[in-house]
């Protein structure tokens, strides 16, 4: 399992990377592995506001669906529409396949660094 050190992580298994004042958000390698083959991503809309700790979409595998929980509050400025046609990118490259970018940030969940997140995942099994 891969835990890049330049990212922050939420306990609901999303990663956050700051790009200037924009937060780039995806799901962790641990999350994609637990989900199995992702078959579809329900994306939010550009311009929607998101709140930390609340659902902004979901990812479907064949037999499960999991909410995507936003680690930050703000306004969505871009969504990765390439995932609509190629949801498998979330499995192949969890840290390359970002899901959304959020600006006007005004709050975040408790975020973990790579080491703390790895320990957290180890506990979850």
């Amino acid at each position, binding site marked *: 399992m891969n835990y890049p050190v330049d990212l922050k992580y939420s306990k609901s298994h999303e990663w956050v990377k700051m790009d200037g004042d924009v937060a780039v958000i995806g799901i962790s390698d641990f999350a994609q592995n637990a989900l199995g083959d992702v*078959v*579809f991503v*329900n994306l939010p809309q550009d311009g929607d506001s998101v709140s930390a700790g609340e659902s902004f979409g979901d990812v*479907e*595998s*064949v*037999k*499960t*669906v999991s909410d995507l929980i936003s680690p930050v509050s703000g306004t969505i400025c871009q969504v990765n529409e390439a995932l609509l046609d190629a949801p498998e990118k979330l499995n192949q490259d969890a840290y390359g396949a970002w899901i959304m970018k959020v600006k006007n940030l005004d709050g975040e969940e408790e975020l973990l660094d790579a080491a703390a997140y790895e320990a957290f995942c180890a506990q979850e099994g």
Partner: protein
Amino acid sequence: MGSYVPSTPAERQEMLNAIGMKDYRDLYHDVPQSMILNRALDIPSGMSELEVGRAVASLAEKNKRFSTILRGAGAYDHYIPSIVKYIPAKEEFLTAYTPYQAEISQGVLQSIFEYQTMICELTGMDVSNASVYDGATAAGEAAAMCKDRKRTVTLISAAAHPDVINTVRTYCYGSGTELRVVPVKNGKTDPDALREMLVDEVASFYLQQPNFFGQLEDAEAIGKLVHEAGAMYIMGCNPIALAIMKTPRDCGADIAVGEGQPLGMPLSYGGPYLGYMTTTTKHMRRLPGRIVGETVDSKGQRAYVLSLQAREQHIRREKASSNICSNQALCALTAGAYMAAMGPRGMAEAARQSMAKAHYLADGLCRIPGVSLKHEGPFFNEFVTVLPCGDKALEALESAGILGGLPVEGGLLWCATEKVSKAELDRSVQIVKEVLAK
């Protein structure tokens, strides 16, 4: 008494012994004794197959049989090819469950895939589900597909079938959506009223084509109005008419639904029928119900499975947009066999003849002094007449074995299909003429 338990009394006792029990009462030891029904059920004793056959047949005989049916209003007496009746009667199709186990269900899965394709062909839409309960529930589910947080009002034409309006109203009541009914003018949806009612909160508008009064709506123009307001356009179409009528796709519909009964299902006092339900690729993942998809198996052969299941209730539970977890598979099979037997030419022929005969009937009735058409617009195979002494006319028709038009506000709603002959139509007109001459 009748029974379908194969084990003999001796075998049953042997099985009880094997699980360490004396008699059946022991099986229910978890049930509080106070609750056990300590008496026989108050229903008659069981019967042999011969007796029960007689008893049920005597109930069927209490219904009046009409040899000619000139009534539609949501249930249409089209000709059903003989072969169509034999296919859903095949025991494997009849007794199988929902095809969860694809490896031993390829037959029923393929039949649904073929049905989906045929319905897409008929409607011009991209995607069909495996069917829902009937046309009215299809309309209810379609309305539920369209609403979101900002758009919470559903519009429906007053010229839709009353059962469709009432069912959509009930689905809206459930989900807390407001239903507003767009009024009718001259037997058609009033476009000016619709324009005014298409406010920002409107999620969708439902139009029936041909409408409940048989009138053909200007569906394309109405679709433009709906889209200009940013709402979704749902059309409910008669599938026989679709063989010759402009498709909902070409009219701009986002969702097309309808009552599939005319596709080979007998009248049967209202059911089983079939709701077909289609949409565009864009809205595919919001479509409720079962959907069959093509894939390959472990050896690379073409195979079919229940697909896109993550939309459904057994996975989403309270987040699912619908609780539906079945379809009308046997009715979809019937509809598929019907469309295959009729073929594109036969379907179009049934549609053209239904229309021609309805017009012939309308002309005949309107030649009787005092009878006229209530609406002047073009119609398919149903129309409303203004006719004095409608009750007497219906009585006289009934004594001749003819089911006449349905009394609707201020007139009779008549219907003809390819099944009625010119002679039957002439006779019907003659009977009405004689009643009115008295």
